[in-house]
Structures are given as C-alpha cells and as structure tokens.
C-alpha cells in the first residue's frame, strides 16, 4: 500500500507541473489560436533566473521566486510584442514557424550564454522530507500539488469573475466583435500572455525545487508534453488543461511503474494521436465549424 500511495503522489507531482504549463498553452491558444512553441522555453528562462539570483547573487529564495515569476511574465509579453504581434493577420503557418523560431532562439541563446552544462538551482528550503504517519513524502511533491490547486482556482476566478477575464473570453469568442464592443484587443492579448507566462514562472520555480537543475533544452520536452496535456483536455479549457496534465503525469508514472519507462514518451504521444483521431477537440473541448 505504501508503494501505491508513493506512486500516486509521484504521478500527482508530475501531473501538476504539466498542468501548470498546459494552462499557459491553453490560454494563449484559446485567445489567438497560436501554438506558442516558446512556452516551454519560458520555463527554462525562469529556472535560470532562479539559479542566477540564488547561486550567483546569493540572494534570498523568496526574492528568487518573485524575480523568476516577474522575469517569465515580462518574457512572455516581450515575445508577443516583438515576434507575434506583427503577424496578427498573417497566415497561421507563418505564426507557427515564428513560434518555432522563438523557441529555437531561446534554447540556443541560453546555451550560448550559460553553456550546455546544466546549472544547479540551490534548494529553496532545508526541508526535503515530510513524515506523515510513517510515510516519507517528498516535500517538493506536496508543495507542487498544493500550489497547482491554488493557481488553478485563482485562474478560474480571474477568467470567470473579473472584468479582464470577461474581455479575454470575448476576444477569444470573436476578435472583431470584441473590438467593436470597445475592448482593447491588443492589451487583452498582452494580458493573456502575461498571465500564461506568470503560470510558467510558477511552474519554473516548482520545477527547480523538484529537479534542481536548469539546462537550455529542458523546456522542449516539458513544453511538448504539456501541449499534449492541453490538447487532451481540450484546448482553450482551464479544467481541461488540469485534467489533461494529470492524465499525462499519471500515464507516465504508470508506464514507468510497470518498468517500461523506455516507452514513456511513445505512450504519451500515442495517447495524443488517439485523442486527435477519435475526438480532435479533446475531453472538454467545443467543436468549432470552419468558416469559408
């Protein structure tokens, strides 16, 4: 029974990080139909900022957490303004290629600046294990799960209750009509990027806490799998992203538990392919008919 509980926690931890990243994908895709390939790399930037602040400057972990989130938020907005905004009305193919270019730029830029060797982010706290009735739980795992729950609830409230959330939903529904209604479309999109990237920043901190290392290519696989999670749940849907993230996390955990870790990536991608063929809109997604 101990193993079972530990493995469930492992799956939850993995799934929570995927869910946080998937939320960012889902928000950006929901509003401008852009698969933001660079989203995973924003997490990489956040992890490096944590490393810079703590290992290089020797500052307080709390400051590192705040600075990482701020840096990711700024990064997201800047990327949107510089690379995506000029292409708002361009063909989808062009924007997609640009997104790949941005992702590639961040990865190789980080490699040039920091080197290919991974950097170690110091521990945020000295606590590494929590004892719960004789069961040794990993502290980062518990924190990750809790933070993800809080972040999801906060995001749902933001989108459903606040004025800006209403604007976001309107722009995502029909950009032209939203503009006519007096909604500032550009600042709404920027705000969406900011929120999505802030979530990526939180993800970066949790990632750095659990896996302690920052490397230039760490965002690629993480980003791709989180995208899979977002598609699984139904892109554009907040509960969908969380459920999708947990499915991916649990799928990986179960495959690894069975001793088939080699096929882990293949299983996740196979899952994606099956979902796209059977139900292209995902679990919580809405069908959209194509306009000529």
């Amino acid at each position, binding site marked *: 029974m101990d193993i079972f509980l530990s493995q469930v926690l492992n799956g939850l931890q993995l799934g929570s990080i995927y869910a946080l990243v998937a939320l960012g994908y889902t928000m950006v895709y929901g509003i401008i139909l852009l*698969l933001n390939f660079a989203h995973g790399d924003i997490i990489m930037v956040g992890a490096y900022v944590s490393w810079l602040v703590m290992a290089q400057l020797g500052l307080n972990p709390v400051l590192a957490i705040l600075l990482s989130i701020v840096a990711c938020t700024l990064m997201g907005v800047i990327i949107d303004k510089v690379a995506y905004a000029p292409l708002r009305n361009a063909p989808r193919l062009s924007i997609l290629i640009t997104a790949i270019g941005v992702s590639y730029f961040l990865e190789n830029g980080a490699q040039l600046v920091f080197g290919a060797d991974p950097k170690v982010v110091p521990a945020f706290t000295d606590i590494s294990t929590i004892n719960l009735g004789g069961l040794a739980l990993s502290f980062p795992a518990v924190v990750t799960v809790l933070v993800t729950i809080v972040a999801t609830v906060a995001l749902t409230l933001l989108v459903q209750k606040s004025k800006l959330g209403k604007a976001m939903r309107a722009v995502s529904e029909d950009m032209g009509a939203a503009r006519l209604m007096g909604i500032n479309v550009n600042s709404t999109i920027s705000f969406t990027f900011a929120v999505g990237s802030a979530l990526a920043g939180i993800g970066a901190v949790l990632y750095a806490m659990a896996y302690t290392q920052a490397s230039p290519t760490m965002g690629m696989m993480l980003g791709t799998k989180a995208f899979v999670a977002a598609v699984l749940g139904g892109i554009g849907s907040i509960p969908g992203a969380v459920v999708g993230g947990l499915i991916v996390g649990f799928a990986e955990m179960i495959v690894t538990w069975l001793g088939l870790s080699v096929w882990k990536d293949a299983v996740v991608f196979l899952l994606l392919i099956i979902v796209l063929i059977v139900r292209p809109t995902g679990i919580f997604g809405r069908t959209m008919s194509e306009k000529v």
Partner: protein
Amino acid sequence: MEEEIMTDKRPIISTGGRGGASGSKKTLPMPVRYAINAVLVLLVLVVGELMIDGGAITRYQSTVLEQVGVYIILAVSLNIATGYLGQLPLGHAGFMSVGAYGCAIFVMRMAEVLGVGARDFTTGTPLTVLLVIGGLLVGGLCAAVAGIIIGIPALRLKGDYLAIITLAFAEIIRVVMLNIDSVLGFKLTGGAKGLTGIPGYSSFLLVFACVAIVCFLIHTMMKSRHGRAILAIRDNEIAAEATGVNTTYYKTLAFVASAFFAGMAGGLYAGCIGVLQPAYFGFMKSIEILVMVVLGGMGSMLGSALSATVLTILPEALRAFSEYRMIAYAIVLILVMIFRPQGLLGSYDFSLSRIIERVMNRDFPWKKKDDAPADAAKGEEVSADV
C-alpha cells in the same frame, strides 16, 4: 547509368506537356528543353567526377558536397509538403531515419548474402551499383510506408495539430529505432549503440544523380494534373474540394512523395557517414531542414536547393560561424516570417529554357515592358543549379 534513364525519360514525358505556345513568339520544343537540361546535368556530373578523380576536389570537399546533395534532396522533398501542399510537418527527420535504416540494413544484409565485401562498394561493381539502387528504393519505400501510416491520421488535422502530431510520430519513430532490438530480440537497428559498419557506398556521382532525378520527378509531378490539384489544396482546401479535387488522396500523395524522397536522402546519408544513431534524427534535424525550405522560399525548388547548399557549406567554410549557427537559424526564421513570409525567392523557379527563349525573341529585361511575352513556359527547373 542513372543519367541514361533520365535522358530516355525526358522526351517521353514532355509529349504530355503543354501544347503550342502563344502566337508569333519563338519557343523551344519540349524535347529540346529536356535535352538541354539533361546535357547540362550530365556535364555537371562528368566535370565533378573528373575533378574528384583528378584530385582537384579533395575527399574532404567531396564528402561535404555529398552532404550538400543529401540536404538538397531533404529540402526539396520537405518543400512538397510545406511549399506546395501548405502544411507544416515537423517530423521530416523521422522519415529520413526510416529511409536511412531501411537502406543501410538492406544493403548490409544483402551484401552479406551475396558475399560482397565493404571494399567493393568504394570501387563499385555492377552488383554493388544494383544493390545500392535497390537499397535506396527500399529506404524510400520504407519511408513512404511510414508516410502513409502517419499521413492518413495526421492529414485529417491541419495547421498546429498536424505539426504536433507529426512531431509526435517522429519522436515515436526515434523511440522505436532505439528499442526495437530489445523487443524483437535480434539485431536490427543496433539500438543505442547505433548501426555501424555501413559500407561507404555514397559517392559524388550517386548523390548528384539522385539529386537530379529527384528534382526532375518533383518538377514533373508538380507540372502535372496531380501537382495542380496539390497547389489548389494549398490555396483553398474547401474550394478545391468543391471543384472536385479528392483532397484526402492528393494530400496523402504529396505527403507520401515527400516521405519517399526523404527516405532516399536518408539512405544516401547512411552511405556517406557509415554510422547511424537514432538521436541524430531528432526534432532539431527536422527544424534544420525546415529552415532551409522557409529561407529559400516555400514553393521554390531552386530556393530550397540554394539555401540547402549555402546552409551546409557555410558552417564548414566559416568554422567560427558554426558556434552561432543555431541562433542564427532562429533569428533568420523569425525575421523571414515577419518581413518576407514567402521566403527569399518566394515561389520563383529558375528556368533555363525561359532565358534561352528570351534571347531567341530578343526580349531582354532592360527593354521596355509592353512587349514582354504573355507567359513563357514557367518554371522549367534545372537541377544544374547545383
């Protein structure tokens, strides 16, 4: 011997080509056009081969040239799916790897059965030539089968979803290549160790003969009714379907053709390097090929070939540049998309015949505009541009 097949083929296909040209303008008959191009291709091959034999091109340079050829094939084949069909597959390296492994395993196994030594491949006997051509076809077919398996589900989706699903398939191919040995229990791909001891059968002559054949085949395909159907799908899929184009069929056709040629390029790559490992054919390799197509111009074979050439030679020529190569690729991608989304050459294709016809008609670009010909035969692509 490949050249002979080509010269034979060209006139045959040309009879199906366009009919009489407009009015009083002097034009070249199709057979003559094909003959001119075939002669030029032959000339390039012969001169290149003589220079290698004579030692004017060192082995280092000829190895680099072979890689240039491989990348040209990869770029023009991806161009079918990206430039002509208007989709964005991110798994081209996956097809390349299927072809590379297929070809290398076929050649190695058959060489063992037929008792051909590794040395014979460098000297070249009729048997090895047949074996290598067979291997390239096998590699291409393996990749084409992979293309069908991937294409049928993937092409139901479009845009971002297609990109991500092809990326996913390429990753699955990589994982399978890595682990299939331990599942099957016998030696096929060599797994993580890589496939080693592949005979070095690729030569300048073979690679560029393949480049010429591939360019020729793609060119004729795109000039045919099938090609026009593919272009129609790119321009507006719904409209194409409404006018009776079987979109599923033609999308799959373009996708599979793209995979087939990528597989051939993979086979040539295997013979050029002698070692294959699954990690080489990752996402990064797919992006590298994509950069070549995007930079050169989506829909321009000349553009793809030129940028493949430049982007392969540049890191070799300027070793200092190679450190910044990847970041330069990224910046190029973004800038091209923002400022010139159609790529440097757009959909322009070089045509030698068109130039000759202009000379015949004394219609030079510096003359005034009004008497320009209505439409000289457009896009007689010459593979001699390499």
